[in-house]
C-alpha cells in the first residue's frame, strides 16, 4: 500500500502520531514546492481528483483543487446541494457514476456526519474527508497541526485553547484529537450549551471562563460561531456571545507575548474575533490557508503511494 497504509483519509482518530508527523514533514516539502515559481510536480499526472461538496465551501474546495492541480492531476468539481440529493440520486449512485468515469480520488464534504465513512465502505476508490457534519475535518486538523509545528517545532508541552461552538464543530473534534496525539494540553472553552460534558472523554480540560484561560495559552484557536445557533436558544444573543467569548484587543492584552492566534475561517469579524487581532502579527490565519494547500498536497502524495522525503533538517522530535 502507501506510506499511510490506507486507501482513505476519513478522520484523525484512525491516524497514529507517526502518521500525523509524516504528513506534516511531507507538507513542509510541498510548501517549498508551491511557494516557488514553477509550482507543479508530476506526482498525480494522469490521475483524476473529484471534489464532491454537498455543503457550500470555498476555501476547502479551492485548497483541495489547487493541491491536486499542483500535483498535475485532472480535477473535476461536482457542486451539489443537499436539496438535490434529497429528491434525486443517492450518494452511492452519484459516486459510482464518478468511479465509472475513473475518478481516482473523491474529496467529499457532506453535512451528514459519517457520510464519507459510509461511502468508503461501499466504493473502491479513495475517499478523502473534506468535513462531515459535526464529526471530522481531518485535513483542517492536519494543517492546524502543521502550522503550529512550523512556528514552534513541536506540540509537546504547548497549551492550546479551542474556543467557541465546540458541540457543533468538526474542526474542534479533529483538532483536539490531533493536538492530544502529539502531546499538547488542550482546553476547550465556550458557553455551557455549546460545550457538552461528554467532551471530557477526550481527556481535555474544559472551562466556560475565557478570561481566566487566556493568559495560560500558547495557542488560541478561535472557532466560527454560526448565527443560526442563537435561534435554537443555545445562547441568548450575538451581543452576549461577543461579550463573553470574543477575542478582543482587551483580552489579547492578557495573552502571552508569543501567543499564536488561529482561526479555521471564514471569520465573523467583530463577533468571535476583533479586526485588530485577526490581522495582528501573532495571527497566523492567512498562513493557515497557505499551509492547507501544502498539507493537502502531502495527503494526496502519500495516499498515491509517495515515499517519505528524507530531510535531515526536517526531524520532528
Amino acid at each position, binding site marked *: 500500500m502507501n506510506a499511510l497504509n490506507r486507501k482513505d483519509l476519513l478522520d484523525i482518530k484512525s491516524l497514529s502520531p507517526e502518521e500525523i508527523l509524516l504528513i506534516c514533514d511531507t507538507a513542509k516539502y510541498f510548501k517549498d514546492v508551491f511557494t516557488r515559481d514553477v509550482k507543479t510536480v508530476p506526482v498525480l499526472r494522469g490521475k483524476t481528483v473529484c471534489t464532491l461538496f454537498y455543503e457550500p465551501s470555498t476555501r476547502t474546495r479551492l485548497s483541495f483543487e489547487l493541491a491536486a492541480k499542483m500535483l498535475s492531476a485532472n480535477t473535476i468539481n461536482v457542486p451539489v446541494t443537499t436539496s438535490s*440529493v*434529497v429528491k434525486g440520486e*443517492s*450518494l*452511492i449512485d452519484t459516486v459510482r457514476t464518478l468511479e465509472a468515469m475513473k475518478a481516482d480520488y473523491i474529496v467529499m464534504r*457532506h*453535512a*451528514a*456526519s*459519517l*457520510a464519507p*465513512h*459510509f461511502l468508503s465502505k*461501499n466504493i473502491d476508490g479513495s475517499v478523502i474527508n473534506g468535513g*462531515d*457534519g*459535526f*464529526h*471530522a475535518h481531518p485535513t483542517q486538523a492536519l494543517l492546524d497541526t502543521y502550522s503550529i509545528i512550523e512556528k514552534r517545532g513541536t506540540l509537546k508541552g504547548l497549551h492550546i485553547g479551542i474556543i467557541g461552538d465546540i*458541540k457543533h464543530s*468538526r474542526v474542534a*473534534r479533529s483538532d483536539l484529537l490531533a493536538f492530544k496525539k502529539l502531546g499538547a494540553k488542550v482546553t476547550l472553552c465556550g458557553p455551557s450549551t455549546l460545550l*457538552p460534558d*461528554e*467532551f471530557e*472523554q477526550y481527556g481535555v480540560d474544559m472551562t466556560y471562563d475565557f478570561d481566566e484561560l487566556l493568559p495560560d495559552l500558547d495557542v488560541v484557536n478561535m472557532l466560527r460561531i454560526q448565527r443560526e445557533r442563537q435561534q435554537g436558544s443555545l445562547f441568548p444573543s450575538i451581543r452576549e456571545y461577543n461579550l463573553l467569548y470574543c477575542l478582543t484587543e482587551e483580552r489579547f492584552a492578557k495573552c502571552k507575548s508569543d501567543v499564536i492566534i488561529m482561526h479555521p475561517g471564514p471569520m465573523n469579524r467583530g463577533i468571535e474575533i476583533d479586526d485588530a487581532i485577526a490581522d495582528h502579527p501573532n495571527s497566523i490565519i492567512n498562513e493557515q490557508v497557505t499551509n492547507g494547500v501544502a498539507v493537502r498536497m502531502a495527503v494526496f502524495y502519500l495516499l498515491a503511494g509517495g515515499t517519505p522525503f528524507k530531510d535531515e533538517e526536517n526531524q520532528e522530535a
Partner: protein
Amino acid sequence: MRIVIKNGRVIDPASGTDDRLDVVLSGGRVEAIDRNIKTSAEDEIIDAEGSLVLPGLIDMHVHFREPGREDVETILGGSMVAAKSGFTSVCTMPNTTPVIDNQALVRFIIMEAAKGPINVFPAANITKGGKGAEISEMGELIKGGAVAFTDDGMPVTSSITMRRALEYSRMFGAPILSHAEDKSLADEGLMNEGLNSIRLGLKGIPREAEEVMIARDILLARLTKGKVHFCHVSSEGSVEIIRRGKNDKINVTCETAPHYFSLTDDEVEELMSMAKMNPPLRTENDRRGIIEGLRDGTIDVIATDHAPHSPNEKMQEMEYAPFGIIGLETSVPLIITELVRKNNFSYLQAFAKVTCNPAGILNLDRGVLKSGGHADITIVNPERKIKVDEQFLMSKCKNTPFTGRELFGSIEYTICNGKIVYRRG
C-alpha cells in the same frame, strides 16, 4: 386428523408448566396435554425430542406496511415471515398510508390476514388521521376487530388528548399503546445522546425524551384509571419510572424490543443506519436496566417493532436513512441467547414475555397451552444455532444489525389454529 407432539419439553408460562409432556391437537384446538399419549396410524406425529413446546408466540408490535408501502412488506408477506419466526399472532401498527383510523381499514387488514398463515390483530389509531387532535371512533374500531389503540411513530403530544383517549378507551378495556417521545426534546436526533453521539458528531436523543412522556402518561393513567402500555422501552430510567408506577398500583404495562437488551450505541459507528431506530440504542447501563426490568417483571412483554425498510432507503447517509430494523426472525434466537443463556432467565420467565403477557394486555384468548384452547404451538430447539445471513433471512427487507451473528434457538415448527404453517426445511 390429529397432530401429536411427542417427547418435547412443554413450557407454558401461564400455568407455570415446565415438563416433558405430549400434546395432542385436533380440530384447531388442543385436545390433550399428558404423558405418553397413545397414537394411532392416522395421527401426524412430531418428534419434539430436545425441543421446547411453547404456546404460539405473540409479537404485539410489528409494521407490515400495508396499505401504502406494499413494495416494502405486505400483510401476507409479513405473516409468512412471522410464521417462520415462530409467531402465531401479531399486532400490526396502524401508521400505514392511510393510517388505520376507520373500521373499513381494520376490516381490510383482517381480510388480507385471512389469506395468510397466522392471526393478525390490528391496532388502530388513537386519533383521527394520527394527527394527535381528535380521538378516533374507538367503539366502531373495536367492533371491526381492533385490539388496541396507538399513534405509534408519532407521540400524542397533547396531554388533554391523551387524557381523553385513556378515559374513553377504558369502556372497551382496550389498551392505549403509548409511543413515548417528547419530540421537541428529541430535537431531530439520530442516536442516543451521550459519549458516542458527541464523538461521532451525530445529533443525540436524550433518554429523557422518552422518560418525560412515560412519566406523563403514567400520571394520566392514574388520573383516568385508563390502561396504558408503553411501546419499545429503551432506557433504565424508563424502567424505573414504570416500576414505581406499578408499585403505586397504576394500570401500566410495557414492552421492550430484543435489540434493547442485546445492543448498545457502541454499535452505531460501525453499523450506521442499520443501528438507527427510534428510540435509539442506549448505553450498557440502560441495556442492563432493561434486562433487570425483564427479570423482575417490570417489563411485561418483548415485542420486536419489526420495521422493514427497503435497501435503497437504508443505504444512505445515516442522517437521511429512516428509523427502524426488522426483528421477527431474530427475536426467539436473541431471547434464548441473550436472556436464557447469558442472563440465566428460565424458559418460563423469558417466554411469558411473548405468550401470556401480551395476550393478557391485548385481551387475546391465546398465548396459553391448555386443553380446549386454540391449537397455536411453537416448537423451538434451543440448542441449535442459526446464522443471521442472506440465506437465513426470509424477510424481503434485510435491515438488521444482527447480520453475521450466530445465535442459539431455531424454530422447528410453527402451528397456528391446528395447521402446521412452518416446518424447518
